[in-house]
């Protein structure tokens, strides 16, 4: 039975987050590493190359990796300090079982016993309630090999349709929009195409903080003469010095794109040849945007007409361009429509599939791209295949050695899994690489659902906040403790190399999954000895699919410093730029550059709808959420790295002085923000860099500091992405400091900064 142990501070005292700083050999100025391993950063979708210095099976520091072309040695602060996640005092080195009598609420248990208990519980639940009573939550920070294995494990070993992953909170709107428009879901261009663009359009992306290395591409484009247009409710660092800043009201992006398309048509800033030859649906879209006059667009978006016209003119007249967007337009109940609107202005310009003419979504997680291609998504099979397509099912069933009829049908999205728990349909849950209690919206509900489970097993290297509710915790592996491939922001497949061995009983995640399968007597298909063997099966499974990895091997990645998919065979170099005239793809088969049978892209009508929860008298202020540079996602890793925590110790409520004045709040005051779902008290940061009708709270923190207590679980009907980027709140000056600020709270037991040596 799951029940949250009462003593939160007790858990924190035993399992962290504690802060790790450089000390001992990591601070010594005379340490000689045993080896230096070329690999990549474990955090965001850019997957910067990095070299890890290893001594005595501990990563003791880093060295810039200048030979890797994407970042040429550049890193953000997370990449610099990532090494501190290893040899961490909070690291799980044994399996744990829930034991309220024990200090910290858990006690250690032998690994084999934990596996046996997990297998027994899964078997009991499935025998009692049916196979579908088990759910699996996976993640897009896993290597592609692991992601593939998770999809297979759910469908073949657990025989449940209910697997989904945390890319549901991240990439699905972009993915769905891209598939609807292009027939394929991948950034269309390598980032080098940004450099020669005349106009760079950035919508809903805090590039400087969420994809820091991309900053250099943007500034470099400007050095070459580009105009930079940024659309955001906040003046982010990339927006500060951009050429045109459009301070959009949260949730109104589609209106802006429709307004831009309207002006492009009005001024005939169109590529008629391209539209006629390679797109379908322009006329309907043109008809639809007729109503989006600059005036109406201005009224809905809250941007001046003058600025909208300027943006349209620059975009319309450009010879080359690059449009990129991120969660800012995707985390909406109409996220897919926002994406389609963005793609529409790209397709109408005809500026895609050529050098310096590009489009791309900025991937969030490390393997945000690769993790959404090979079947851990509820409706998907490897190679970006469709689980409801009989041919696709047959192909994969053949590779998995099962009867196609045995293969479960499509499952449901991650949030729906929790609603199924609520309805009593799912009784058991296995999670890996996912911290839903922090990262899902309306997360007080999520926490209650975790408690409602009959059995919950979590795999992680630290005890994340969701795992507090687990019956069994299995010690997984850190990024640097395993090898495998990931696909980064550009669609480039790269190789993660192992630097150290997992400590204690900790195991590489794919071994844990296979151990569970074996303990259930379902080891057929789960007897891989190394990630390379999983990749070999994945390559065959993806063959002929949209995301074709057949020609990708570790050796080729090494040789070419990455391989862009699709890559059809051993001789194929890969496909850095999609949609080039005359390019071949398995769907169009030569008919045209896009991934539809006719080879043409789809221009979709993208109707505007306001956010699911608009402001009203009761809740008059918009809340938007996002990241800060020094933290990553739910913070399981980065809230344990001292120098990163020091950089931005706790969340604050960002608000404009005009709003603050109205509310009687001054910079540094405690302020309470409240939505229909939750309430949070944080310090106010009063800044003129945000719209006066909007507040911003970063989402990386747990418990009382979690922004997702407030956010709404409204989802996009197509992508099922939650609407993190806008909901209605009210804000007031708090009477006093919140409880967490008075307690040791999450900074309990933090280690002291050591002294300089030498």
């Amino acid at each position, binding site marked *: 039975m799951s029940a949250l142990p009462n003593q939160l501070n007790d858990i924190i005292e035993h399992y962290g987050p504690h802060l790790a700083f450089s000390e001992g050999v990591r601070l010594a100025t005379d340490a000689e590493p045993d080896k230096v391993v070329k690999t990549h950063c474990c955090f965001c979708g850019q997957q910067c190359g990095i070299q890890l210095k290893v001594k005595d099976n501990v990563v003791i*520091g880093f060295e*810039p990796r200048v030979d890797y072309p994407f970042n040429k*040695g550049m890193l953000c602060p997370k990449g610099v300090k990532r090494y501190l996640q290893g040899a961490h005092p909070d690291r799980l080195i044994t399996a744990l079982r829930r034991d309220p009598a024990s200090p910290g609420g858990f006690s250690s248990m032998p690994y084999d016993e934990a596996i046996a208990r997990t297998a027994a519980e899964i078997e009991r639940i499935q025998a009692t309630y049916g196979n579908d009573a088990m759910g699996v939550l996976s993640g897009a920070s896993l290597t592609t090999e692991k992601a593939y294995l998770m999809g297979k494990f759910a469908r073949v070993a657990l025989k449940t349709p209910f697997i989904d992953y945390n890319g549901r909170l991240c990439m699905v709107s972009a993915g769905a929009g891209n598939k609807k428009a292009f027939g394929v879901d991948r950034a269309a261009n390598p980032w080098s195409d940004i450099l020669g663009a005349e106009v760079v359009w950035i919508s809903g992306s805090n590039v*400087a*903080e969420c994809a820091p290395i991309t900053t250099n591409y943007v*500034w470099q484009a400007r050095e070459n003469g580009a105009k930079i247009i940024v659309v955001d409710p906040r*003046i982010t660092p990339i927006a500060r010095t951009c050429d045109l800043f459009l301070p959009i009201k949260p949730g109104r992006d589609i209106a802006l794109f429709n307004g831009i398309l309207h002006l492009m048509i009005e001024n005939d800033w169109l590529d008629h040849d391209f539209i006629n030859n390679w797109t379908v649906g322009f006329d309907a879209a043109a008809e639809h945007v007729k109503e989006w006059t600059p005036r109406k667009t201005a009224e809905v978006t809250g941007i001046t007409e003058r600025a909208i016209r300027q943006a349209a003119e620059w975009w319309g007249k450009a010879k080359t361009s690059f449009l990129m967007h991120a969660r800012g337009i995707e985390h909406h109940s109409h996220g897919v429509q926002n994406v389609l609107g963005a793609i529409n202005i790209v397709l109408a310009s005809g500026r895609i599939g050529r050098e310096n003419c590009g489009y791309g979504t900025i991937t969030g997680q490390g393997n945000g791209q690769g993790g959404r291609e090979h079947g851990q998504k509820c409706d998907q099979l490897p190679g970006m295949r469709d689980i409801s397509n009989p041919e696709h099912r047959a192909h994969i069933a053949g590779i998995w050695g099962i009867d196609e009829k045995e293969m479960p049908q499509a499952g449901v999205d991650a949030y729906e899994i929790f609603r199924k728990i609520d309805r009593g349909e799912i009784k058991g849950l296995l999670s890996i690489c996912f911290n839903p209690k922090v990262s899902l919206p309306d997360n007080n509900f999520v926490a209650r659902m975790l408690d409602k489970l009959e059995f919950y097993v979590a795999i992680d290297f630290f005890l994340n906040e969701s795992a507090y509710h687990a019956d069994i915790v299995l010690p997984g592996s850190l990024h640097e403790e395993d090898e495998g491939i990931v696909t980064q922001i550009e669609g480039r497949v790269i190789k993660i190399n192992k630097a150290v061995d997992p400590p204690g009983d900790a195991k590489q995640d794919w071994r844990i999954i296979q151990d569970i399968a074996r303990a259930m007597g379902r080891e057929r298909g789960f007897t891989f000895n190394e990630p390379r063997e999983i990749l070999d099966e994945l390559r065959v499974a993806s063959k002929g699919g949209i995301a074709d990895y057949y020609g990708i091997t570790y050796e080729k990645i090494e040789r070419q410093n990455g391989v862009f998919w699709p890559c059809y065979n051993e001789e194929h170099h890969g496909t850095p730029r999609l949609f080039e005239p005359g390019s071949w793809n398995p769907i169009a088969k030569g008919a045209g550059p896009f991934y539809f049978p006719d080879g043409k892209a789809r221009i979709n009508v993208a109707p505007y709808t306001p956010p699911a929860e608009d402001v009203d008298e009761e809740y008059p202020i918009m809340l938007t959420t996002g990241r800060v*540079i020094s933290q990553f996602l739910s913070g399981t890793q980065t809230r344990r790295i001292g120098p990163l925590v020091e950089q931005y110790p706790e969340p604050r409520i960002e608000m404009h002085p005009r709003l603050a004045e109205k509310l009687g709040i001054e910079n540094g005051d405690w302020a309470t923000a409240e939505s229909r779902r939750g309430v949070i008290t944080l310090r106010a940061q009063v800044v003129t860099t945000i719209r006066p009708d909007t507040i911003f709270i970063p989402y990386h923190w747990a418990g009382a500091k979690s922004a997702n207590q407030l956010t709404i679980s409204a989802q996009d009907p197509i992508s099922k992405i939650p609407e993190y980027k806008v909901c209605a709140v009210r804000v007031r000056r708090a009477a006093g400091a919140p409880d967490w600020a008075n307690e040791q709270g999450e900074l309990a037991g933090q280690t002291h900064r050591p002294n300089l040596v*030498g």
Partner: protein
Amino acid sequence: MAVPSHLEFFVDPNRCIGCKACVQACSECDTHKGYPMIHLEYIDRAHSVQTVPVICMHCDQPTCAEVCPADAIKRTGDGVVQSARKPRCIACNNCVIACPFGVPKMETGFKLMMKCDMCYDRSSAGLKPMCAAVCPSGALFYGTREQIEQSRPRSQAVKKFQFGGQTITTKVNMMTPKVASAEYLDVTAAMDEQTIGKEITFNILDAASGY
């Protein structure tokens, strides 16, 4: 070993995004491990996200060294102004408040001035200083003059700075717009400047009404 003469430092604060990768990486350098020497600060966070990274500019005639009563600050033959020599520094703070760029830091516990030394362990071995190696915005760039001229066609590197009546010439370059064809950067002329960048209200439609 000395810093190779064909490698130079180029700073462009206008590109800075305040990410602090430089600060975090600076503390990984073996000449000052655990203690970042680069400064990275908001100029006025209440009104702007503008940030400024400041490394030692390595003056040809360093004010810090001249005002040092202990003769502790030395400029090596390659033009790098080194951190105070540990046996000599008497922690008087002259350098800290006299440096025209505001670079040296006083570690009061150590009774020692420490400053950016271009990661001398790295740069003297031909490697990039840590901050410039990692800087994701190109605000800090270390490389050859050919590289910078090729990659920054809009920019012109200057190494002369005006502070009131004083001209300071440095080893480190500052990027200025080519169209300005400036021979030097007049620092004290920016005395009354507040912050530089977009205003949120500028393009907001209903800025005057409601929130």
